[in-house]
Every structure is written in C-alpha cells, then in structure tokens.
C-alpha cells in the first residue's frame, strides 16, 4: 500500500503546483502566463412605468411569501437543430424540477405566467435602449426582431426569454484603449428565486418581464482590474442617461472568464463590480488547476475512454458501520452509495480555489443536477471526514480499490440515486477533458460554485408571437439629441477642472455630472468646489444620514442657486446640505435658521480681528506664529460662515 493521501498537505502541494498567488501578489505577467481572458454581459434595468411585453407596473416588488396564487410548471427540453437535446436541456430534464411561480395580482398578469401572448413591445423601453446603444457607439439595426432564448431552469415561465438586438459592434474607451462591444439587446427580466430545495424550485414573478438591456463585450480584458474598469464604465454609461433603474438588483453582470487551454465559464449575476477582480482571478486559477488535474490524471489513466468507476450500495447494519452520520442518514430513509474512482487519488483534495478542492466540483453538481441537498457526500480525502476511519476501511473493502484510486460516498433519496451516480461519473470523465462548460454562482469570498451547464448555441429562435419592428433613420435621429455626452468625455472634463479623482466613482454612479455641469456653467461656481460638494460632502452625508423620497439632486442645484442669489459665501453650502438631505421639504431660509446662521456684514466681522489679535497676544504662551491666525479663525468661523469667504478671511487675518 502506498502512503494514504494527507488531504491538507496534498491541497497545499497542489496549490503550489498550480502556482496560485493571491491577487495582491499577482501582476500582468501572472495573468499573461495564465492566458487570462474575460468578457462581460452587463444587465441594466430601464426606468419605465410598465413592463416590456405587458402593461403590468415595473419596479414594484414583494416579499418572498407575499403572493396571491401559485402555479406549477415543468420545463421540457425541445429538440435542438440536430435532433439532440443540448447539455443544459438534458441536465434540467434530469433534475425533474417542479417549478412553482408565486403571483401577486398587482405585479403580474396572465402574460408573465404564459397564459397570454405578448402585447406590443414597450416603446419607451425601446427608445431608451436605442439611446444607450448610440452612446455605446453601436450600429443600430434596421429592424428589431424579437427572439426567444431558451432557459430551462424555470426562471421564465414560458421557458424562454424574449430578447431583441438593438445594436451591434460598438466600443467603449478604457485607460488602456478601447474595449469592443459585440451587441446590446433589449430583453425581459427573469423571476427572482425564492428557494430551490430538492425537486422544488420556487420563484416570484414581480421582477419578471421588466425591461432590461444587456451589453455584451468581446473578451478583450486581460486582467481582473480591467474587467472591473470596463464594467464600471458600462454601468456609468447606462446611468449617464438618467433613464435606468438604480438600487439593489437593477444592475447585474455575468462575467465570462477563461485561461489558456480552458473554457469560457460564466459567473452569473455578480451584483457588485467590486467583486469582479477577485472572482475573475480565482476563476482563472480554478481553470488552471483543472488543467493541472487533467495532466495528472492522463498520466495515470492512459485510456480515459475506458475509465469506469465502480459503485456499491452502503449497508450500514450488515457492514456494522458505526458513524453517527451514516446511521442518521439511514434513519431518514436515505440511500448511500460508495463509488471507487480509479486513478483519482490526490485528485479529490486537489486545489481548485481558495478553500475548495476538486471534490467540491462533484458536490456542487450533485446538488444542482441530482437535487441532493448539501452535505451530500464524503470522500477518502476529506479534511474533516463525516465518516470514521474504521467505517471508511470497511466501505473500501467492498469496493476493492487499487493503489491510486479514490473513493467517495454520496447519499440521497432512492429516486435520485441513478442521476447522482451518472452525475459523479460524468463530472469525473470531464476531468480528463479539462474545464467543463458551465455557469457558476459567485460567492462573497471571491470563489464560485457550480450553477448550471452552460446552454448550447442552439437555443435562440424567432418569436412567432411578435412582428419585427422597423427602426427608420428618422426615428433614430429623433432620439439622438437626447444622448448625453460620453462618460469618457465627462471624465476628461472633470480632470481638466481639477476635481479630485476620488470623487469620480460616486459622481458617475449617481449620474451627478449633469447637475455639476449645470451648477458650474449656469451659476458660475468653481468646479472644484462643486465637484467636492457632491463627490465628498454629499457622499459623506449619504453614508451617515437618512433621507426621504423627496430628496433629489435637483434640490442641491436649488441650494447653490439660492446661495448665489442671496449673495452668501459658498462654504455655507456644506453646512446646509446635511439638513437639506434629511429634510428635503424644508425651505432654505429655515435651513439657515436651523444651523443658527445670522447675517453679519463683512466689515463687522473684519472689525473684530484687531481685538482678537490683541487678546491672543496678551495670553499666549507658545511661540509658534501659526497659532495666532488659527485661533482667530476658530473664533470667527461660526459668524463668518456664509457671510464672508473663509479663504479670504484667513488671508486678511494673516496679512492684515
């Protein structure tokens, strides 16, 4: 017998073999060596009153248990072009999921649940999509064709999403150069999942059918930070129109990643762009690790086609197994199956991602495909085994393994065992090929778990319920004047003005550039002051105080205008803003009162300077000359604020 695998040592050793480094220690050379490649699909909800294909209100949400009725559907794969079921189709069918839709009368009608054909496409949404497509320098199509894109996970009750291309082949400018865009489509949003337990997946239908655009880039990004930069740019671009939804879930992205020799893997539904660098970094290394596993397996198993696992049902009582975990499973009526994986020693505990090993790839698929709730398996290389060493020895005896084999045990209800066994075998076979085509779900720690098999290409077909919509030049030209200036041009403008860079993210996320520009050009305030009032003061206030729906950024414009009209010194704006933010309905005069502002003539303030100078000179003990003006400013600040420019006052004190 060879030495048994020490899981933790093996995990560390394989991590080193893969060459994994944390992101902080990775540079462009690291990513070039891996052949890092990434592209984005950025989703953005549009700000419309109604949904895309029916007249239900958009943007009204319910809690998971707030519903009027439930209906049940099953998704059945349709045959693909070659008369075969594609991978996802087959997988979703294997899972035999019962899909439950929760309907609230206020937010969903018979269209959402596929009991009524679509109504004509929402024109407001179409025009917003055209505007954003123009801003993304995409070529606008001559005729919009509604296409059905199949989804068998149940996230859309029809089994397909209605989606349409608005523009193709555009680009966005990044620091390093342009990133090419493949297309922008207008589509209906999907359901929100409530739960997915065993064979029942439950969705709510409030978000379903809301208009959404998807901007797809080419895989032009060469490192994780660029992916985030591109994503931020697209999101800022969308927001710069002021016609998109903001808030949780209004913008989400799917991130595609591959390494050299790997496969395009889609990390779905990343809701924060800040997560992107860590996720893409780890995914690239996960693929690199899978290729390493492949190399090792091929060295051990010369003929992968002939590779075959063996399995046996675990008999807890007959074999005298004592582990409490096994006994508990038996009592719950679950079946346990032990599988011998020839040549897989060391593979199960092989590093794939920080805190995850190859066995997790199996466990993830058992959950999704075979509907076995986790924990659903244990294996011979588990760091913390659920089954005692003695029981393992007894189980292995039944499997009669050879040196270099690995073993696992999985458990679940009788009816899922066959699918589960096929799933284990299928995933292990894929290890000989490298990186499987799949979509993965992002976790907050920057790693991912298996979500679905990536759908095949043949899942798009024309929507026979809708007519094509012509987009004439005249229509596009009517929209063109409302297209805002490009985000890159706005960046440039703020740089030229000298607005500090740390203000930009906040300003673009909130689409504040247009209001800043108005304050500067219409009211004549200094751009650095205006930029920092928004990008620093307002940002700080927003992080520390509550507001009401009455607060708009236009009110801040009003504040600037008021201060100018009243001839007040601009600094008072920073003092008034917190009050305005918390009480947007309060008039400006009352805000001034609330911060104890009193109108004092400039001369009156300046006249106090000689007296104060006298006072400090008579009492001071320090010889530091800078103390004097500081102290005087401190004495005068409250009465000076708004009545006299503080910079000017400070100069007067020093030199006057």
């Amino acid at each position, binding site marked *: 017998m060879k030495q048994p695998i020490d899981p933790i040592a093996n995990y560390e050793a394989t991590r080193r073999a893969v060459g994994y480094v944390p992101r902080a220690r990775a540079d462009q050379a690291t990513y070039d060596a891996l052949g890092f490649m990434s592209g984005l699909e950025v989703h953005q909800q549009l700000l419309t009153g109604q949904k895309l294909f029916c007249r239900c209100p958009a943007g009204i949400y319910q809690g998971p248990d707030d*519903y*009027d*009725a*439930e*209906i*049940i*559907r*099953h*998704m*059945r*794969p*349709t*045959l*693909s*072009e070659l*008369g075969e079921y594609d991978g996802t189709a087959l997988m979703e069918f294997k899972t035999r999921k019962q899909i439950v839709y929760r309907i609230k*009368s206020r937010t969903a009608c*018979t269209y959402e*649940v*596929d*009991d*009524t*054909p679509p109504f004509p496409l929402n024109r407001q949404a179409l025009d917003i999509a055209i505007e954003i497509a123009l801003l993304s320098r995409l*070529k*606008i*199509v*001559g*005729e*919009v*064709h509604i*296409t*059905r894109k*199949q*989804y*068998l996970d149940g996230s859309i*009750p*029809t*089994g*397909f999403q209605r*989606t*349409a*291309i608005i523009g*193709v*082949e555009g680009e966005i400018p990044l620091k390093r150069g342009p990133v090419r865009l*493949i*297309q922008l*489509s207008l589509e209906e949003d999907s359901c929100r999942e409530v739960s997915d337990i065993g064979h029942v997946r439950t969705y709510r239908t409030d978000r379903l059918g809301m208009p959404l655009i998807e901007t*797809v880039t080419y895989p032009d990004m060469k490192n994780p930070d660029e992916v985030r930069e591109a994503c931020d740019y697209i999101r800022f671009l969308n927001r710069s129109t002021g016609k998109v939804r903001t808030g949780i879930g209004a913008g989400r992205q799917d991130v595609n990643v591959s390494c050299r020799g790997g496969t395009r893997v889609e990390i779905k539904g990343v809701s924060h762009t800040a997560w992107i660098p860590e996720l893409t970094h780890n995914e690239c290394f996960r693929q690199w690790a899978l290729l390493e596993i492949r190399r090792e397996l091929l060295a051990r198993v010369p003929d992968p086609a002939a590779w075959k696992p063996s399995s046996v049902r675990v008999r807890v009582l007959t074999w005298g197994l004592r582990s409490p975990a096994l006994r508990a499973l038996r009592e719950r009526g679950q079946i346990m199956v032990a599988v011998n994986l020839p040549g897989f020693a060391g593979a199960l505990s092989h590093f794939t991602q920080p805190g995850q090993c190859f066995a997790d790839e199996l466990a993830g698929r058992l959950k999704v495909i075979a509907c076995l709730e986790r924990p659903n398996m244990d294996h011979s290389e588990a760091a913390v085994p659920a089954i005692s060493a003695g029981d393992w020895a007894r189980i292995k005896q039944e499997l009669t393994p050879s040196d270099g084999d690995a073993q696992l045990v999985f458990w679940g209800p009788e009816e899922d065992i066959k699918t589960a066994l096929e799933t284990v075998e299928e995933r292990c076979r894929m290890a000989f090929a490298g990186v499987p085509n799949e979509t993965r779900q992002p976790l907050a720690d920057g790693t991912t778990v298996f979500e679905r098999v990536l759908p095949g*290409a*043949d*899942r*798009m*077909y*024309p929507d*026979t319920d809708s*007519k*094509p919509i*012509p*987009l004439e*030049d005249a229509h596009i030209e009517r929209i063109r004047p409302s297209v805002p200036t490009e985000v890159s041009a706005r960046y440039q403008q703020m740089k030229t003005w000298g607005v500090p860079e740390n203000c930009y993210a906040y300003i673009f996320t909130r689409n504040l550039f247009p209001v800043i520009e108005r304050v500067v050009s219409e009211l004549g305030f200094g751009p650095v002051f205006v930029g920092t009032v928004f990008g620093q003061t307002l940002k700080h206030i927003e992080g520390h105080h509550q507001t009401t729906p009455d607060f708009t950024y236009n009110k801040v414009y009003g504040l600037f205008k008021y201060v100018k009209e009243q001839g007040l010194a601009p600094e008072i704006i920073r003092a008034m803003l917190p009050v305005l933010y918390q009480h947007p309905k309060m008039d400006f005069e009352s805000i001034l009162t609330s911060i104890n502002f009193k109108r004092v003539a400039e001369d009156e303030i300046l006249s106090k300077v000689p007296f104060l100078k006298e006072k400090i000179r008579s009492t001071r003990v320090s010889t530091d000359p800078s103390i004097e003006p500081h102290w005087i400013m401190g004495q005068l600040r409250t009465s000076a604020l708004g009545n006299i420019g503080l910079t000017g006052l400070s100069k007067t004190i020093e030199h006057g």
Partner: protein
Amino acid sequence: MADDIFQGYKGAGLEVLKKFNVRVWGQAEVETTRGPFQGTVLPRADQDDDRHIVLKIATGYNIGVDIATITAMRETGYKKANYKIPEKQFPVTPGLPAVKLLGTGGTIASRLDYRTGAVIPAFTPGELYGAVPELADICNLTTEKLFAVFSENMGPEQYKALAVAIGREIENGIDGIVIGHGTDTMHYTAAALTFMVQDPPVPIVMVGSQRSSDRPSSDAALNLMHATTAAGHGGIAEVMVCMFGPTSDEYGFLHRGTRVRKMHSSYRSTFRTIGDTPLATVTRAGVKPIKQDFKPRRRDRKAVIRPFFEEKVAMIYYYTNMQPDMIDSLVEHGYKGIIIIGTGLGHVNKPLYPAIERAVAKGVHVFMTVQTLWGYVHMFVYDTGRDLMAKGVVPLENMLPEVAYIKLGWVLGQTRDRDEVRRMMLAPINDDITPREPYNGYLVYQGGVPEVEEFVRKVHK
C-alpha cells in the same frame, strides 16, 4: 426553382438581393450607412414588409437590415439548413393498449426550425416518440394523418371523414382513439363526433395544445400523455375533450363532447364543461371519474356511425336592435335551419317576429339557445317567449349554441320533416341536453372576495 433561393423576399428587398447576388442561406457582409453588418441571410416571412433583409448574426440573434441604408452586399459563403424530426422506431410493448392517433392538421407535438422559427409538426409514431418518449410507456401508438387543415377550416367534410375513420378503427379492434385537433373549434368537432359516432365501445379523445410544443413550458406533451392514457387505459367510452384542468402542469380534464367549450383565448385551462361537472380528471397514473354515469368501455366492436350534415344551417347571435333583414337574408339564401342565440331566458325583440314567421312559413327550422351559456331557455316565463314559440321557434333547453348548430346540421342532413327534426333535436344524445343542472355546474368565482382569494392562494390555478 428559381424563386426558392430568395425565399419569402419580394419587391424592393428581392431587388436588392438580386442586385448584389446574395441568396437566402448565404453568408453576407452588408455595408450600410449605419455601419457594416454580417450574418446569414434568412428567409423572410410572407406577411412582413419588403424593406428589410433578415440576418442571423454570429451570436444567434436575428436582426433586420433596412435596404434603404444598404450601400453594398457580398456573399462570402452559403449553407442551407435542412431540418427534420428525428425518427425513432416507436417501441411496441406487449400488454400495452393499441391507440390510434388521427391527425387533422393541428400540431400537438412538433419541433422547431431554429433558424426560421418555423414549427415542424411531429406526427408519425417515430417522430412523436422522438419528441415525447414517455408515450411508449403508455401505449402502442399508430398514427394516420386524415387531413391537414387549420382548426378554423374544420367543417362538415372533415367531421364526416373523421366519423368514418373512427368507425373503421373500431371495427379493426383498436383500444382507443386520440384525435389531434386545433383548439379553436375543437368543441364543434367534439359535438359533431358525438352525434356521428354513437355508442362507441372505446374512448374517443380529442386533444390539442394551447402553447405550441416548441416551447419548454408547452402543454402539448402532457396533454398527449393524458389523452393516450385516457384512450388506452381509461374506462369511459365516449367522445371527449382532454385538456389541462388548471393552468398548472398538474392534471387534465375529460370533458363530455356535448358540454365542453373553449372559454379563454389563451389560457391553458381554456376548456370548461358548461352546466355540469367534467367527466373525469386524468393524470399519467390514470383516469379518475368525477361523474358516475359515463358510458363504460365495452369489448364489442359496435358503433353507430351516422356521417350526415346539411351545410345550410346558420347560427345568429341576437343583439339589441337586430333588424329583421338579418333573418330574411338567411332565408333568401336558402338556409334550412337557424339557431338563434337569444338574450336572457331566450328572447329577441319584437321587430324580428314577422321575419321569424316568414322563415318558418318557408320551412326553415328555427331553434332558440341562450347567450348566457349557463342555464336553460325558459320561453314560458314572459309573453314574448310564448309569442315566439307560437311563431314556431323551438327552445333547446340547456343545449350550448355551438352544439345546437352542429346538431341541427346533423339532423337536417337526415330529415326535413318538421316534427322529426324537432323530435331529434330535443332527444338528448350524450347530454347535449341534460334534465337537470347540478349545483356545482356553474362555478365562475370572482376574484377579490376573501374566501375566493384564500382558495386561489391554496389551490394551484
């Protein structure tokens, strides 16, 4: 065929393709004033305009290019797609019932031409097995395509041909018959077959789908499984319609052919039994009767086939201020029978009376049904009703209007004798008229009522 390389293109669009020598299924590079586009040229739907060319781009989506913007076009390749459903041998399992599927033209199972979106019907047993493999666990299926017409084009010729074909299948010893049919006029055909095929020894099950089977959430596969189960294993030997019970994928209803009606333009659960309960529910596990007075399956091979139909029969839906010439013109055009769908308990306005008198005098047979669908014609209640009856209008109890129309056509195809026509119309055939209406035969609940909402929340729609 020369035109075939420009499938569906016409007018200006066709000229552009010809000018640049680009064919349908050709890979094209298109220069336009909006920039370049690339993709495979797809056929154009007949009803669409001639101002655009359809491309399938690399990502699989379709787009249209405005020909007014095209400055140049070049074909760089060509790949014609050919689609057909995979035929797999339908396995014959000893011990399973023999079921015959008769096709009328409605598609139940189908697959898609992914490029054009065209639905290719699956019909042969092999094709059906390819699309719904579960059928092989239910029965030994054979199929025959009788005709290929849309639901709205089904008429007397088809009813008669179906009845004859059913008679033949029964004689040949089939265990059950399924008829694939478009849903729009399924209840007309169901009534016709009830009259034309009386006392069949085996189930005759009509089935269709409300959502075409190219979509993953289609009701087609489940309906087909339910129908073959009812036909092969069920014990009810009547003409029935088998469609979704709730809109959820849960169970199907078997509706009696004379009491069923399509009640919603798009719901899956559109078919409802009117004025009674459905015959039974059906799942893949079998048929579960709701009514106990059904006609049971028999071992004999007897059935009365009466394939007759007089085409000059009309149905007129009364509306306020209907003018007498509506009826006069029917008489003038040689109509032999008229079903009036009257208001309330079975009424029309007074100005129509002389026209009705003239019609009856000319030998036209006039019957009354109600717009309310539920409930009986009661022409004794008001003077107006009694007047109408005196003028020769015969009330048809609670017969549904469409059923009355079909029955009158069928009766007039056999006799013109006034008393005989009247006798046959009023002699119930499998509940076209029922002697009583059960308390649970009319349940149209209204939303918003707390107890209804509670029910809807708990029970899957």
